[in-house]
């Protein structure tokens, strides 16, 4: 049981960290740039919100299958299969939780007072400096919310990780899948314990999100 929980936590942590590196630039582009294909990009980012997880899992499987481009490159590079591996689950989780990471940051960027951005220019700061010293610190709350949501959402996924990971004990069997198998095998006490832990993790993460959102000027503290 704790093995599966540990895998879940590990997956959520790795996914969240990688997601932040992707979500921040993506949110920046979506918040501040206008370009052809913007709407398409926004739709793609939001797609995992409505897509059945099995559909997403199916496409990720196709993408990382040993005979696919990505799958075979991975095979050559690391001499292991990307499908039914932890790394494969990370990839799938990144796609699955992408909107939860991008949207809060994008909203935080959009909510920035225009004068703050002008202030940076007036003070002779280039776009990199404005980002580092004004945009990012001012959006700290949004980044925290994004991290908490991405983490909680990854902890809670089921269909995608089952499709892509294959529920290999000690490798890709995460807590949510372990719970399902416990119920199937009528391991009542283990199941209720694991369910309670998952509930607690989600509760804590969402409490964090709501308390951050209640302080719109978190950055000011």
């Amino acid at each position, binding site marked *: 049981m704790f093995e599966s929980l540990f895998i879940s936590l590990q997956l959520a942590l790795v996914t969240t960290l990688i997601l932040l590196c992707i979500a921040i630039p993506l949110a920046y582009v979506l918040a501040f740039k206008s370009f052809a294909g913007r709407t398409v990009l926004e739709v793609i980012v939001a797609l995992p919100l409505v897509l059945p997880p099995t559909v997403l899992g199916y496409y990720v499987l196709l993408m990382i299958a040993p005979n696919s481009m990505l799958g075979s490159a991975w095979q050559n590079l690391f001499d292991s299969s990307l499908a039914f591996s932890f790394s494969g689950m990370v990839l799938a989780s990144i796609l699955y939780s992408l909107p939860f990471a991008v949207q809060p940051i994008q909203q935080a960027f959009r909510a920035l*007072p225009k*004068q*703050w951005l*002008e*202030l*940076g*220019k*007036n*003070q*002779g*700061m*280039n776009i990199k*400096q404005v980002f580092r*010293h*004004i945009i990012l*610190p*001012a959006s700290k709350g949004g980044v925290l919310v994004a991290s908490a949501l991405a983490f909680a959402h990854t902890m809670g996924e089921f269909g995608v990780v089952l499709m892509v990971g294959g529920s290999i004990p000690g490798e890709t069997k995460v807590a949510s899948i372990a719970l399902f198998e416990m119920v199937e095998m009528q391991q009542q006490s283990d199941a209720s314990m694991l369910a309670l832990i998952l509930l607690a993790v989600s509760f804590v993460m969402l409490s964090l999100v709501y308390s951050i959102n209640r302080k719109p*000027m978190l*950055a*000011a*503290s």
Partner: protein
Amino acid sequence: MKHALHFQAQFGNLLLDAQATFDDEIIVISGENGAGKTSLLRCIAGLEKATGSVQMGQTIWLDSVADFILPTEQRNIGFVYSEAVLLPWLSVEKNIKLGVKNGSGFQKIIADLELAPLMQRKPAMLSSGEAQRVALARAMYRQPSLLLLDEPFSAQAPEIRNRLRHVLKAWQKDFHTPILLVSHDTEEAKSLANQHWHMREGKLLVKVKGMLKNKVVNDE
């Protein structure tokens, strides 16, 4: 040094038309609300699109014929808005030093503007007058080649206002930085202005000996 503005800009129904030259001096700009005073400053700062030319000394900031626009961050301006824009998570000191690599005379500026005891405060703990002085200090500290002030003393008590005018005047003498100052205060105009501009429905009119002159000034 000689500086020259020859540009136009459209803001809804208002056509901003600026034709003027100035030296390293203080220019007070008056005019009714909506006459384009703030827009004039924003165009000069490069924050709004304008067509024509802006030349500061030897440096060209805008030359529409050559399709050249110097970005705001490279114009080395100090810009104080009528409502102070401070970053709430930074102390007063860090707000003043924001983005500045080679500032000068920090101690003198904060002493002159009566900000010394406030250095470690956050903007939320400042009165509007104090916040406005912090914004002014920030613009002065970076040693701009042009200082743009949009009603910079509007939130100050009358007795401080007078002191601040002297500070500004002395600072201008020391650094020879041209200052464009928007003000509704006729007394302010009298005590500060080397030149007086008046904005009327978007048109920049140069006031000479109390008379408005719609002159088109050539550079040389």
